[in-house]
Protein backbone atom coordinates (compact mmCIF):
# COMPACT_ATOMS: atom_id res chain seq x y z
CA UNK A 1 0.00 0.00 0.00
CA UNK A 2 2.99 2.35 0.65
CA UNK A 3 3.79 2.69 -3.10
CA UNK A 4 0.15 3.59 -3.78
CA UNK A 5 0.24 6.28 -1.06
CA UNK A 6 3.42 7.75 -2.60
CA UNK A 7 1.69 7.82 -6.00
CA UNK A 8 -1.37 9.58 -4.50
CA UNK A 9 0.92 12.22 -2.97
CA UNK A 10 2.49 12.67 -6.39
CA UNK A 11 -0.94 13.11 -7.99
CA UNK A 12 -1.84 15.74 -5.37
CA UNK A 13 1.38 17.64 -6.19
CA UNK A 14 0.51 17.54 -9.89
CA UNK A 15 -2.97 19.01 -9.25
CA UNK A 16 -1.42 21.71 -7.10
CA UNK A 17 0.99 22.66 -9.92
CA UNK A 18 -1.99 23.04 -12.27
CA UNK A 19 -3.86 25.27 -9.81
CA UNK A 20 -0.71 27.29 -9.13
CA UNK A 21 -0.33 27.82 -12.88
CA UNK A 22 -3.95 29.02 -12.99
CA UNK A 23 -3.14 31.63 -10.34
CA UNK A 24 -0.07 32.75 -12.31
CA UNK A 25 -2.09 33.30 -15.51
CA UNK A 26 -2.82 36.83 -16.66
CA UNK A 27 -6.26 36.80 -15.08
CA UNK A 28 -7.95 37.77 -18.33
CA UNK A 29 -9.63 35.05 -20.36
CA UNK A 30 -7.26 35.31 -23.31
CA UNK A 31 -7.06 32.38 -25.71
CA UNK A 32 -3.33 32.84 -26.23
CA UNK A 33 -2.75 32.77 -22.49
CA UNK A 34 -4.76 29.61 -21.83
CA UNK A 35 -3.78 27.62 -24.93
CA UNK A 36 -0.17 28.81 -25.44
CA UNK A 37 0.89 30.20 -22.03
CA UNK A 38 1.12 33.61 -23.72
CA UNK A 39 4.04 32.30 -25.86
CA UNK A 40 6.24 32.83 -22.83
CA UNK A 41 7.68 29.43 -21.88
CA UNK A 42 11.32 29.68 -20.77
CA UNK A 43 14.25 27.55 -22.02
CA UNK A 44 14.40 24.99 -19.18
CA UNK A 45 10.67 24.25 -19.14
CA UNK A 46 10.59 24.28 -22.95
CA UNK A 47 13.23 21.52 -23.27
CA UNK A 48 11.95 19.24 -20.52
CA UNK A 49 8.29 19.74 -21.28
CA UNK A 50 8.67 19.17 -25.02
CA UNK A 51 10.60 16.02 -24.27
CA UNK A 52 8.14 14.91 -21.59
CA UNK A 53 5.24 15.48 -23.96
CA UNK A 54 6.75 12.88 -26.28
CA UNK A 55 7.42 10.36 -23.50
CA UNK A 56 4.13 8.53 -23.38
CA UNK A 57 3.25 5.26 -21.69
CA UNK A 58 4.11 3.68 -25.01
CA UNK A 59 7.66 5.03 -24.78
CA UNK A 60 8.34 3.89 -21.24
CA UNK A 61 6.34 0.71 -20.65
CA UNK A 62 6.16 -0.21 -24.35
CA UNK A 63 9.93 0.08 -24.83
CA UNK A 64 10.77 -2.31 -21.99
CA UNK A 65 8.00 -4.65 -23.18
CA UNK A 66 9.32 -4.59 -26.74
CA UNK A 67 12.88 -5.19 -25.49
CA UNK A 68 11.66 -8.09 -23.34
CA UNK A 69 10.37 -9.74 -26.52
CA UNK A 70 12.85 -8.57 -29.16
CA UNK A 71 16.06 -7.66 -27.33
CA UNK A 72 18.46 -4.75 -27.63
CA UNK A 73 17.25 -3.93 -31.15
CA UNK A 74 14.48 -1.87 -29.51
CA UNK A 75 16.91 0.94 -28.70
CA UNK A 76 18.21 1.34 -32.27
CA UNK A 77 14.74 0.84 -33.66
CA UNK A 78 12.80 3.36 -31.60
CA UNK A 79 15.22 5.51 -29.59
CA UNK A 80 18.37 6.28 -31.57
CA UNK A 81 16.44 6.93 -34.80
CA UNK A 82 14.22 9.36 -32.84
CA UNK A 83 17.35 10.90 -31.32
CA UNK A 84 18.29 12.15 -34.77
CA UNK A 85 15.00 12.61 -36.65
CA UNK A 86 12.89 14.36 -33.95
CA UNK A 87 15.41 17.15 -33.13
CA UNK A 88 16.01 17.60 -36.87
CA UNK A 89 12.31 18.12 -37.46
CA UNK A 90 12.18 20.58 -34.52
CA UNK A 91 15.18 22.41 -36.01
CA UNK A 92 13.75 22.72 -39.52
CA UNK A 93 9.98 22.81 -38.93
CA UNK A 94 9.49 23.78 -35.28
CA UNK A 95 11.53 26.99 -35.58
CA UNK A 96 9.66 28.07 -38.72
CA UNK A 97 6.28 27.39 -37.15
CA UNK A 98 7.34 29.38 -34.08
CA UNK A 99 8.32 32.36 -36.26
CA UNK A 100 5.03 32.24 -38.19
CA UNK A 101 3.06 31.92 -34.96
CA UNK A 102 4.83 34.92 -33.48
CA UNK A 103 4.35 36.99 -36.66
CA UNK A 104 0.78 36.11 -37.57
CA UNK A 105 -0.69 34.80 -34.31
CA UNK A 106 -1.26 31.18 -35.39
CA UNK A 107 -2.18 28.81 -32.58
CA UNK A 108 -2.61 25.57 -34.55
CA UNK A 109 -0.97 24.13 -37.69
CA UNK A 110 -4.33 24.21 -39.50
CA UNK A 111 -4.56 27.99 -39.04
CA UNK A 112 -1.22 28.24 -40.84
CA UNK A 113 -2.35 25.81 -43.59
CA UNK A 114 -5.55 27.83 -44.14
CA UNK A 115 -3.61 31.05 -44.51
CA UNK A 116 -0.75 29.56 -46.53
CA UNK A 117 -2.94 27.73 -49.05
CA UNK A 118 -5.94 30.08 -48.93
CA UNK A 119 -8.42 27.39 -47.93
CA UNK A 120 -11.22 26.95 -45.42
CA UNK A 121 -12.97 23.58 -45.37
CA UNK A 122 -9.84 21.71 -46.49
CA UNK A 123 -8.31 22.91 -43.23
CA UNK A 124 -11.30 21.45 -41.40
CA UNK A 125 -10.69 18.07 -43.09
CA UNK A 126 -7.03 18.13 -42.00
CA UNK A 127 -8.06 19.07 -38.45
CA UNK A 128 -10.59 16.21 -38.26
CA UNK A 129 -8.07 13.62 -39.54
CA UNK A 130 -5.53 14.85 -36.97
CA UNK A 131 -8.13 14.64 -34.18
CA UNK A 132 -9.25 11.10 -35.12
CA UNK A 133 -5.64 9.90 -35.07
CA UNK A 134 -5.01 11.57 -31.70
CA UNK A 135 -8.01 10.42 -29.64
CA UNK A 136 -6.77 6.82 -29.06
CA UNK A 137 -3.74 8.24 -27.18
CA UNK A 138 -5.98 9.90 -24.64
CA UNK A 139 -7.96 6.71 -24.12
CA UNK A 140 -4.87 4.57 -23.72
CA UNK A 141 -3.39 7.11 -21.28
CA UNK A 142 -6.39 6.67 -18.99
CA UNK A 143 -6.22 2.88 -19.38
CA UNK A 144 -2.50 2.97 -18.55
CA UNK A 145 -3.24 5.02 -15.44
CA UNK A 146 -5.85 2.52 -14.25
CA UNK A 147 -3.55 -0.45 -14.91
CA UNK A 148 -0.55 1.16 -13.23
CA UNK A 149 -2.44 2.21 -10.08
CA UNK A 150 -3.94 -1.26 -9.90
CA UNK A 151 -0.50 -2.91 -10.19
CA UNK A 152 1.24 -0.53 -7.76
CA UNK A 153 -1.45 -0.96 -5.07
CA UNK A 154 -1.31 -4.74 -5.39
CA UNK A 155 -4.89 -4.82 -6.71
CA UNK A 156 -6.36 -2.66 -3.90
CA UNK A 157 -7.23 0.17 -6.32
CA UNK A 158 -9.54 -1.32 -8.98
CA UNK A 159 -8.95 -0.47 -12.65
CA UNK A 160 -12.10 1.67 -12.95
CA UNK A 161 -11.18 3.72 -9.89
CA UNK A 162 -7.53 4.14 -10.92
CA UNK A 163 -8.60 5.26 -14.39
CA UNK A 164 -11.11 7.70 -12.88
CA UNK A 165 -8.48 9.21 -10.58
CA UNK A 166 -6.00 9.67 -13.42
CA UNK A 167 -8.69 11.16 -15.68
CA UNK A 168 -9.78 13.55 -12.91
CA UNK A 169 -6.23 14.66 -12.10
CA UNK A 170 -5.29 15.26 -15.75
CA UNK A 171 -8.59 17.04 -16.41
CA UNK A 172 -8.11 19.29 -13.36
CA UNK A 173 -4.69 20.64 -14.20
CA UNK A 174 -5.45 20.99 -17.92
CA UNK A 175 -8.76 22.72 -17.07
CA UNK A 176 -7.21 25.19 -14.64
CA UNK A 177 -3.63 25.52 -15.82
CA UNK A 178 -4.05 25.25 -19.60
CA UNK A 179 -0.72 25.20 -21.44
CA UNK A 180 1.19 26.74 -18.52
CA UNK A 181 0.00 24.06 -16.10
CA UNK A 182 0.57 21.27 -18.62
CA UNK A 183 4.11 22.46 -19.38
CA UNK A 184 5.04 22.74 -15.69
CA UNK A 185 3.58 19.33 -14.88
CA UNK A 186 5.42 17.78 -17.85
CA UNK A 187 8.68 19.35 -16.66
CA UNK A 188 8.17 18.00 -13.15
CA UNK A 189 7.33 14.56 -14.57
CA UNK A 190 10.38 14.48 -16.85
CA UNK A 191 12.75 15.37 -14.00
CA UNK A 192 11.15 12.67 -11.88
CA UNK A 193 11.59 10.03 -14.52
CA UNK A 194 15.14 11.04 -15.46
CA UNK A 195 16.32 10.94 -11.82
CA UNK A 196 14.53 7.83 -10.68
CA UNK A 197 15.09 5.89 -13.91
CA UNK A 198 18.80 5.92 -13.10
CA UNK A 199 18.09 4.82 -9.51
CA UNK A 200 15.95 1.95 -10.83
CA UNK A 201 18.85 0.60 -12.92
CA UNK A 202 21.24 0.70 -9.96
CA UNK A 203 18.80 -0.88 -7.50
CA UNK A 204 17.61 -3.64 -9.85
CA UNK A 205 21.17 -4.28 -11.08
CA UNK A 206 22.58 -4.76 -7.59
CA UNK A 207 19.58 -6.87 -6.52
CA UNK A 208 20.20 -9.14 -9.51
CA UNK A 209 23.82 -9.62 -8.41
CA UNK A 210 25.24 -7.33 -11.09
CA UNK A 211 24.35 -7.13 -14.76
CA UNK A 212 27.57 -8.85 -15.94
CA UNK A 213 26.44 -12.19 -14.52
CA UNK A 214 22.93 -11.79 -15.90
CA UNK A 215 24.19 -10.90 -19.39
CA UNK A 216 26.68 -13.80 -19.40
CA UNK A 217 23.91 -16.21 -18.36
CA UNK A 218 21.58 -14.82 -21.03
CA UNK A 219 24.28 -15.31 -23.66
CA UNK A 220 24.49 -19.02 -22.81
CA UNK A 221 20.72 -19.50 -22.86
CA UNK A 222 18.43 -20.09 -25.89
CA UNK A 223 17.53 -16.39 -25.59
CA UNK A 224 21.04 -15.24 -26.60
CA UNK A 225 19.61 -13.60 -29.74
CA UNK A 226 18.08 -10.92 -27.47
CA UNK A 227 21.62 -9.53 -27.11
CA UNK A 228 21.81 -9.07 -30.90
CA UNK A 229 19.38 -7.75 -33.51
CA UNK A 230 18.62 -11.05 -35.22
CA UNK A 231 14.92 -10.94 -34.39
CA UNK A 232 14.31 -7.93 -36.65
CA UNK A 233 15.10 -7.65 -40.38
CA UNK A 234 17.30 -4.79 -41.65
CA UNK A 235 14.37 -3.66 -43.88
CA UNK A 236 12.11 -3.36 -40.86
CA UNK A 237 14.88 -1.54 -38.99
CA UNK A 238 15.27 0.95 -41.85
CA UNK A 239 11.49 1.43 -42.09
CA UNK A 240 11.35 2.48 -38.48
CA UNK A 241 13.40 5.62 -39.17
CA UNK A 242 10.28 7.00 -40.89
CA UNK A 243 8.19 6.70 -37.71
CA UNK A 244 9.81 9.64 -35.84
CA UNK A 245 8.66 11.92 -38.68
CA UNK A 246 5.31 11.65 -36.92
CA UNK A 247 6.54 13.61 -33.87
CA UNK A 248 6.48 17.07 -35.45
CA UNK A 249 3.16 16.33 -37.20
CA UNK A 250 1.48 15.52 -33.87
CA UNK A 251 -0.65 18.58 -33.08
CA UNK A 252 0.43 18.68 -29.43
CA UNK A 253 4.11 18.83 -30.41
CA UNK A 254 3.82 21.46 -33.13
CA UNK A 255 1.47 23.54 -30.95
CA UNK A 256 3.98 23.32 -28.12
CA UNK A 257 6.64 24.75 -30.47
CA UNK A 258 4.54 27.94 -30.52
CA UNK A 259 4.89 28.47 -26.77
CA UNK A 260 8.61 29.36 -26.71
CA UNK A 261 9.39 32.90 -25.58
CA UNK A 262 12.38 33.21 -27.92
CA UNK A 263 13.59 31.21 -30.89
CA UNK A 264 16.99 30.75 -29.24
CA UNK A 265 15.27 28.33 -26.84
CA UNK A 266 15.10 25.78 -29.63
CA UNK A 267 18.92 25.59 -29.66
CA UNK A 268 19.33 23.78 -26.33
CA UNK A 269 16.24 21.66 -26.99
CA UNK A 270 17.60 20.43 -30.32
CA UNK A 271 21.06 19.64 -28.89
CA UNK A 272 19.99 18.00 -25.64
CA UNK A 273 17.02 16.06 -27.01
CA UNK A 274 19.13 13.02 -28.12
CA UNK A 275 20.82 12.85 -24.71
CA UNK A 276 17.45 12.94 -22.91
CA UNK A 277 16.22 10.13 -25.15
CA UNK A 278 19.30 8.08 -24.32
CA UNK A 279 18.94 8.74 -20.59
CA UNK A 280 15.39 7.42 -20.51
CA UNK A 281 15.36 4.70 -23.17
CA UNK A 282 18.69 3.00 -22.44
CA UNK A 283 17.68 1.89 -18.91
CA UNK A 284 14.17 0.91 -20.04
CA UNK A 285 15.46 -1.21 -22.94
CA UNK A 286 18.26 -2.78 -20.94
CA UNK A 287 15.98 -3.65 -18.03
CA UNK A 288 13.42 -5.06 -20.48
CA UNK A 289 16.06 -7.45 -21.86
CA UNK A 290 17.29 -8.31 -18.35
CA UNK A 291 13.74 -9.20 -17.29
CA UNK A 292 14.33 -12.43 -19.19
CA UNK A 293 16.79 -13.45 -16.46
CA UNK A 294 14.31 -12.89 -13.65
CA UNK A 295 13.31 -16.47 -13.03
CA UNK A 296 11.64 -16.09 -9.64
CA UNK A 297 8.72 -13.85 -10.63
CA UNK A 298 5.80 -16.12 -11.61
CA UNK A 299 4.21 -13.49 -13.89
CA UNK A 300 7.42 -13.14 -15.93
CA UNK A 301 7.85 -16.93 -16.10
CA UNK A 302 4.27 -17.19 -17.43
CA UNK A 303 5.11 -14.69 -20.17
CA UNK A 304 8.19 -16.67 -21.19
CA UNK A 305 6.16 -19.88 -21.21
CA UNK A 306 3.52 -18.26 -23.47
CA UNK A 307 6.27 -17.05 -25.80
CA UNK A 308 7.77 -20.57 -26.00
CA UNK A 309 4.36 -22.09 -26.72
CA UNK A 310 3.74 -19.55 -29.44
CA UNK A 311 7.09 -20.24 -31.09
CA UNK A 312 6.76 -24.04 -30.93
CA UNK A 313 3.06 -24.63 -31.51
CA UNK A 314 1.88 -21.31 -32.92
CA UNK A 315 1.50 -22.64 -36.45
CA UNK A 316 -1.03 -25.26 -35.26
CA UNK A 317 -3.07 -22.79 -33.17
CA UNK A 318 -6.19 -20.95 -34.27
CA UNK A 319 -5.72 -17.18 -34.87
CA UNK A 320 -7.70 -16.48 -31.67
CA UNK A 321 -5.50 -18.83 -29.62
CA UNK A 322 -2.40 -17.19 -31.11
CA UNK A 323 -3.69 -13.73 -30.18
CA UNK A 324 -4.38 -14.93 -26.66
CA UNK A 325 -0.86 -16.32 -26.32
CA UNK A 326 0.57 -13.08 -27.72
CA UNK A 327 -1.31 -11.12 -25.08
CA UNK A 328 -0.02 -13.44 -22.35
CA UNK A 329 3.54 -13.06 -23.65
CA UNK A 330 3.37 -9.24 -23.90
CA UNK A 331 5.91 -7.60 -21.63
CA UNK A 332 4.56 -4.09 -21.09
CA UNK A 333 4.43 -4.62 -17.33
CA UNK A 334 7.87 -6.25 -16.87
CA UNK A 335 9.36 -3.02 -15.55
CA UNK A 336 6.63 -2.78 -12.91
CA UNK A 337 7.09 -6.45 -12.00
CA UNK A 338 10.85 -6.00 -11.59
CA UNK A 339 10.35 -2.95 -9.41
CA UNK A 340 7.90 -4.87 -7.24
CA UNK A 341 10.41 -7.67 -6.89
CA UNK A 342 13.64 -5.75 -6.32
CA UNK A 343 12.98 -2.19 -5.18
CA UNK A 344 12.30 -1.31 -1.52
CA UNK A 345 8.70 -0.23 -0.93
CA UNK A 346 9.33 3.53 -0.68
CA UNK A 347 11.44 3.49 -3.85
CA UNK A 348 8.88 1.38 -5.70
CA UNK A 349 6.36 4.09 -4.83
CA UNK A 350 8.52 6.90 -6.20
CA UNK A 351 9.40 4.91 -9.30
CA UNK A 352 5.72 4.08 -9.69
CA UNK A 353 5.05 7.82 -9.60
CA UNK A 354 7.66 8.20 -12.36
CA UNK A 355 5.85 5.61 -14.46
CA UNK A 356 2.54 7.35 -13.73
CA UNK A 357 4.17 10.52 -15.02
CA UNK A 358 4.82 8.84 -18.36
CA UNK A 359 1.37 7.27 -18.46
CA UNK A 360 -0.24 10.66 -17.87
CA UNK A 361 1.31 12.25 -20.96
CA UNK A 362 -2.20 12.48 -22.43
CA UNK A 363 -2.52 15.95 -20.84
CA UNK A 364 -0.91 17.78 -23.75
CA UNK A 365 -2.97 15.79 -26.24
CA UNK A 366 -6.21 16.77 -24.46
CA UNK A 367 -5.14 20.42 -24.48
CA UNK A 368 -4.10 20.20 -28.16
CA UNK A 369 -7.51 18.80 -29.13
CA UNK A 370 -9.19 21.55 -27.12
CA UNK A 371 -7.05 24.18 -28.90
CA UNK A 372 -7.84 22.64 -32.30
CA UNK A 373 -11.56 22.54 -31.55
CA UNK A 374 -11.79 26.12 -30.34
CA UNK A 375 -9.45 27.63 -32.96
CA UNK A 376 -9.96 25.45 -36.06
CA UNK A 377 -13.71 24.90 -35.64
CA UNK A 378 -15.30 27.26 -33.06
CA UNK A 379 -13.37 30.43 -33.95
CA UNK A 380 -13.12 29.69 -37.68
CA UNK A 381 -16.86 29.19 -38.07
CA UNK A 382 -17.67 32.47 -36.33
CA UNK A 383 -17.83 31.49 -32.64
CA UNK A 384 -15.26 34.01 -31.45
CA UNK A 385 -16.74 36.80 -33.57
CA UNK A 386 -20.22 36.19 -32.16
CA UNK A 387 -19.47 35.33 -28.53
CA UNK A 388 -16.05 36.83 -27.82
CA UNK A 389 -12.71 35.49 -26.66
CA UNK A 390 -13.76 34.81 -23.07
CA UNK A 391 -16.49 32.43 -24.25
CA UNK A 392 -13.95 30.77 -26.57
CA UNK A 393 -11.67 29.99 -23.60
CA UNK A 394 -14.61 28.70 -21.55
CA UNK A 395 -15.60 26.52 -24.54
CA UNK A 396 -12.05 25.13 -24.58
CA UNK A 397 -12.30 24.32 -20.86
CA UNK A 398 -15.70 22.62 -21.30
CA UNK A 399 -14.26 20.66 -24.22
CA UNK A 400 -11.49 19.38 -21.90
CA UNK A 401 -14.14 18.00 -19.51
CA UNK A 402 -16.28 16.45 -22.27
CA UNK A 403 -13.27 14.84 -23.96
CA UNK A 404 -11.90 13.39 -20.70
CA UNK A 405 -15.27 11.96 -19.67
CA UNK A 406 -15.74 10.50 -23.18
CA UNK A 407 -12.25 8.93 -23.12
CA UNK A 408 -12.87 7.50 -19.64
CA UNK A 409 -16.20 5.97 -20.66
CA UNK A 410 -14.58 4.26 -23.65
CA UNK A 411 -11.54 3.19 -21.60
CA UNK A 412 -13.88 1.28 -19.26
CA UNK A 413 -15.62 -0.63 -22.02
CA UNK A 414 -13.22 -1.31 -24.88
CA UNK A 415 -10.35 -3.82 -24.86
CA UNK A 416 -6.94 -2.15 -24.60
CA UNK A 417 -5.49 -4.00 -27.59
CA UNK A 418 -7.79 -2.10 -29.97
CA UNK A 419 -6.28 1.21 -28.92
CA UNK A 420 -2.75 -0.15 -28.88
CA UNK A 421 -3.30 -1.05 -32.54
CA UNK A 422 -4.83 2.36 -33.20
CA UNK A 423 -1.69 3.98 -31.80
CA UNK A 424 0.47 1.85 -34.10
CA UNK A 425 -1.51 3.18 -37.08
CA UNK A 426 -1.54 6.73 -35.70
CA UNK A 427 2.26 6.91 -35.73
CA UNK A 428 2.29 5.96 -39.40
CA UNK A 429 -0.61 8.33 -40.09
CA UNK A 430 1.07 11.36 -38.56
CA UNK A 431 4.34 10.46 -40.33
CA UNK A 432 2.37 10.48 -43.61
CA UNK A 433 0.98 13.94 -42.70
CA UNK A 434 4.49 15.38 -42.24
CA UNK A 435 4.85 16.25 -45.98
CA UNK A 436 2.09 18.86 -45.42
CA UNK A 437 4.30 20.82 -43.05
CA UNK A 438 7.37 20.43 -45.25
CA UNK A 439 5.46 21.57 -48.36
CA UNK A 440 3.77 24.51 -46.63
CA UNK A 441 7.03 25.83 -45.17
CA UNK A 442 9.59 25.01 -47.86
CA UNK A 443 7.83 24.76 -51.24
CA UNK A 444 6.34 27.81 -52.92
CA UNK A 445 4.53 25.61 -55.44
CA UNK A 446 2.43 23.62 -52.95
CA UNK A 447 -1.36 23.99 -53.10
CA UNK A 448 -4.43 23.24 -50.99
CA UNK A 449 -5.43 20.46 -53.37
CA UNK A 450 -2.07 18.75 -52.92
CA UNK A 451 -2.59 19.01 -49.15
CA UNK A 452 -6.09 17.55 -49.43
CA UNK A 453 -4.85 14.65 -51.58
CA UNK A 454 -2.08 13.81 -49.08
CA UNK A 455 -4.52 14.04 -46.13
CA UNK A 456 -7.17 11.83 -47.75
CA UNK A 457 -4.48 9.33 -48.77
CA UNK A 458 -3.27 9.21 -45.15
CA UNK A 459 -6.79 8.57 -43.83
CA UNK A 460 -7.41 5.92 -46.48
CA UNK A 461 -4.07 4.16 -45.95
CA UNK A 462 -4.43 4.06 -42.16
CA UNK A 463 -7.94 2.60 -42.51
CA UNK A 464 -6.76 0.09 -45.15
CA UNK A 465 -3.92 -1.23 -42.96
CA UNK A 466 -6.29 -1.49 -39.98
CA UNK A 467 -8.90 -3.40 -42.01
CA UNK A 468 -6.24 -5.65 -43.56
CA UNK A 469 -4.82 -6.58 -40.17
CA UNK A 470 -8.31 -7.14 -38.78
CA UNK A 471 -9.35 -9.58 -41.51
CA UNK A 472 -5.98 -11.32 -42.08
CA UNK A 473 -4.85 -12.78 -38.75
CA UNK A 474 -1.18 -12.56 -37.75
CA UNK A 475 0.78 -15.76 -38.45
CA UNK A 476 2.82 -17.59 -35.81
CA UNK A 477 6.38 -16.37 -35.19
CA UNK A 478 8.44 -17.31 -38.24
CA UNK A 479 7.85 -16.74 -41.93
CA UNK A 480 5.31 -14.12 -43.06
CA UNK A 481 1.98 -14.94 -44.67
CA UNK A 482 2.38 -13.71 -48.28
CA UNK A 483 -0.87 -12.25 -49.56
CA UNK A 484 0.26 -10.81 -52.88
CA UNK A 485 3.45 -11.46 -54.84
CA UNK A 486 4.53 -10.63 -58.37
CA UNK A 487 7.39 -12.24 -60.31
CA UNK A 488 8.74 -13.78 -57.11
CA UNK A 489 8.70 -10.44 -55.25
CA UNK A 490 6.62 -10.22 -52.09
CA UNK A 491 4.40 -7.16 -52.48
CA UNK A 492 2.09 -7.51 -49.47
CA UNK A 493 2.60 -9.77 -46.47
CA UNK A 494 1.03 -10.25 -43.05
CA UNK A 495 3.87 -10.56 -40.56
CA UNK A 496 3.66 -11.76 -36.94
CA UNK A 497 4.03 -8.13 -35.83
CA UNK A 498 1.98 -6.32 -38.48
CA UNK A 499 2.09 -5.74 -42.24
CA UNK A 500 4.95 -5.57 -44.76
CA UNK A 501 4.86 -3.85 -48.14
CA UNK A 502 7.82 -4.95 -50.29
CA UNK A 503 9.44 -6.01 -47.01
CA UNK A 504 9.09 -2.53 -45.46
CA UNK A 505 6.69 -1.32 -42.78
CA UNK A 506 3.56 0.37 -44.26
CA UNK A 507 4.83 3.77 -43.03
CA UNK A 508 7.43 3.83 -45.85
CA UNK A 509 4.98 3.70 -48.79
CA UNK A 510 2.53 5.85 -46.84
CA UNK A 511 5.03 8.70 -46.46
CA UNK A 512 6.44 8.37 -49.98
CA UNK A 513 3.01 8.30 -51.66
CA UNK A 514 1.80 11.18 -49.48
CA UNK A 515 4.80 13.26 -50.58
CA UNK A 516 4.29 12.27 -54.24
CA UNK A 517 0.60 13.20 -54.12
CA UNK A 518 1.52 16.54 -52.60
CA UNK A 519 3.93 17.19 -55.48
CA UNK A 520 1.88 15.84 -58.39
CA UNK A 521 -1.48 17.33 -57.38
CA UNK A 522 0.12 20.69 -56.51
CA UNK A 523 1.76 20.80 -59.95
CA UNK A 524 -1.64 20.24 -61.57
CA UNK A 525 -3.61 22.82 -59.58
CA UNK A 526 -3.68 26.60 -59.14
CA UNK A 527 -1.31 28.14 -56.63
CA UNK A 528 -2.31 30.70 -53.98
CA UNK A 529 -2.05 34.39 -54.88
CA UNK A 530 1.48 35.70 -55.26
CA UNK A 531 0.97 38.05 -52.28
CA UNK A 532 0.37 35.03 -50.04
CA UNK A 533 3.40 33.22 -51.42
CA UNK A 534 5.55 36.34 -50.87
CA UNK A 535 4.31 36.49 -47.29
CA UNK A 536 5.73 33.02 -46.62
CA UNK A 537 8.79 33.24 -48.86
CA UNK A 538 10.00 36.83 -48.56
CA UNK A 539 12.90 38.35 -50.49
CA UNK A 540 15.59 36.07 -49.01
CA UNK A 541 14.02 33.02 -50.73
CA UNK A 542 13.97 34.79 -54.07
CA UNK A 543 17.61 35.77 -54.01
Amino acid at each position, binding site marked *: MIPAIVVFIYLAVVVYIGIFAFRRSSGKAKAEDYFLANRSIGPFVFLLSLFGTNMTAFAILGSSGHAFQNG*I*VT*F*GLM*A*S*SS*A*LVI*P*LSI*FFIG*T*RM*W*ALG*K*KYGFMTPVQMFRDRWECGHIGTVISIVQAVLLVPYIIIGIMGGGTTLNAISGGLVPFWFGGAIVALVVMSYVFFGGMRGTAWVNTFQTILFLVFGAIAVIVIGSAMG*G*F*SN*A*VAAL*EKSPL*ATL*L*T*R*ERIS*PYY*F*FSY*TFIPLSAIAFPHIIIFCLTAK*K*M*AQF*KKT*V*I*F*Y*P*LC*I*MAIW*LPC*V*FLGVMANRVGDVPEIRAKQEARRNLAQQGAQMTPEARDEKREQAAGDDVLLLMLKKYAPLWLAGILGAGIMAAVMASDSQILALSTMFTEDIFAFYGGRRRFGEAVQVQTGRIFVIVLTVFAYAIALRAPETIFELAIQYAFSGFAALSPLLVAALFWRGSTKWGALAATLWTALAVAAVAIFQYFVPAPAPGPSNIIWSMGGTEILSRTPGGTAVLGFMPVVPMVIISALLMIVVSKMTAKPHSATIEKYF*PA*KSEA
Partner: protein
Amino acid sequence: MKRTLAYIAVVVLYVLHQDIWFWRRARPFVFGFIPVGLFYHACFAVAAALVLWMLVRYAWPAHLEDEVSLEVSNVEDEAR
Protein backbone atom coordinates in the same frame (compact mmCIF):
# COMPACT_ATOMS: atom_id res chain seq x y z
CA MET B 1 31.18 25.68 -46.15
CA LYS B 2 30.66 24.80 -42.48
CA ARG B 3 26.92 24.83 -43.08
CA THR B 4 27.32 22.33 -45.93
CA LEU B 5 29.54 20.15 -43.74
CA ALA B 6 26.86 20.15 -41.05
CA TYR B 7 24.24 18.99 -43.58
CA ILE B 8 26.62 16.28 -44.86
CA ALA B 9 27.20 15.14 -41.26
CA VAL B 10 23.42 14.69 -40.86
CA VAL B 11 23.23 12.47 -43.95
CA VAL B 12 26.30 10.45 -42.90
CA LEU B 13 24.82 9.94 -39.44
CA TYR B 14 21.53 8.73 -40.92
CA VAL B 15 23.46 6.16 -43.02
CA LEU B 16 25.46 5.10 -39.97
CA HIS B 17 22.21 4.33 -38.17
CA GLN B 18 21.78 1.29 -40.43
CA ASP B 19 24.70 -0.57 -38.82
CA ILE B 20 24.35 -4.03 -40.33
CA TRP B 21 27.90 -4.86 -39.19
CA PHE B 22 26.90 -5.59 -35.57
CA TRP B 23 23.65 -7.30 -36.50
CA ARG B 24 24.40 -10.80 -35.23
CA ARG B 25 27.11 -9.99 -32.69
CA ALA B 26 26.60 -9.57 -28.94
CA ARG B 27 30.29 -9.40 -27.97
CA PRO B 28 32.32 -7.60 -26.88
CA PHE B 29 30.38 -6.54 -23.80
CA VAL B 30 31.34 -2.94 -23.09
CA PHE B 31 31.95 -2.37 -19.33
CA GLY B 32 31.39 -6.11 -18.99
CA PHE B 33 27.62 -6.01 -19.58
CA ILE B 34 26.52 -3.79 -22.50
CA PRO B 35 26.26 -5.71 -25.81
CA VAL B 36 28.25 -3.97 -28.54
CA GLY B 37 25.13 -3.36 -30.68
CA LEU B 38 23.45 -1.48 -27.83
CA PHE B 39 26.61 0.47 -27.01
CA TYR B 40 26.92 1.48 -30.69
CA HIS B 41 23.47 3.04 -30.66
CA ALA B 42 24.08 4.77 -27.31
CA CYS B 43 27.16 6.31 -28.96
CA PHE B 44 24.96 7.15 -31.96
CA ALA B 45 22.69 9.23 -29.71
CA VAL B 46 25.73 11.13 -28.40
CA ALA B 47 26.98 11.63 -31.99
CA ALA B 48 23.50 12.93 -32.91
CA ALA B 49 23.79 15.56 -30.16
CA LEU B 50 27.19 16.63 -31.57
CA VAL B 51 25.92 16.85 -35.15
CA LEU B 52 22.88 18.82 -33.99
CA TRP B 53 25.23 21.19 -32.14
CA MET B 54 27.06 21.70 -35.48
CA LEU B 55 23.76 22.40 -37.16
CA VAL B 56 22.72 24.91 -34.50
CA ARG B 57 26.14 26.58 -34.64
CA TYR B 58 26.58 26.81 -38.40
CA ALA B 59 23.12 26.53 -39.98
CA TRP B 60 20.87 28.36 -37.51
CA PRO B 61 18.00 30.10 -39.36
CA ALA B 62 18.76 33.49 -37.80
CA HIS B 63 16.80 35.28 -40.53
CA LEU B 64 13.58 34.00 -38.93
CA GLU B 65 14.40 35.83 -35.70
CA ASP B 66 15.14 39.00 -37.69
CA GLU B 67 11.83 38.73 -39.55
CA VAL B 68 9.93 38.31 -36.28
CA SER B 69 11.72 41.29 -34.67
CA LEU B 70 10.92 43.43 -37.72
CA GLU B 71 7.26 42.39 -37.70
CA VAL B 72 6.93 43.00 -33.95
CA SER B 73 8.52 46.47 -34.22
CA ASN B 74 6.23 47.29 -37.17
CA VAL B 75 3.18 46.32 -35.12
CA GLU B 76 4.44 48.43 -32.19
CA ASP B 77 5.00 51.41 -34.50
CA GLU B 78 1.48 51.08 -35.87
CA ALA B 79 0.10 50.92 -32.33
CA ARG B 80 1.86 54.21 -31.50
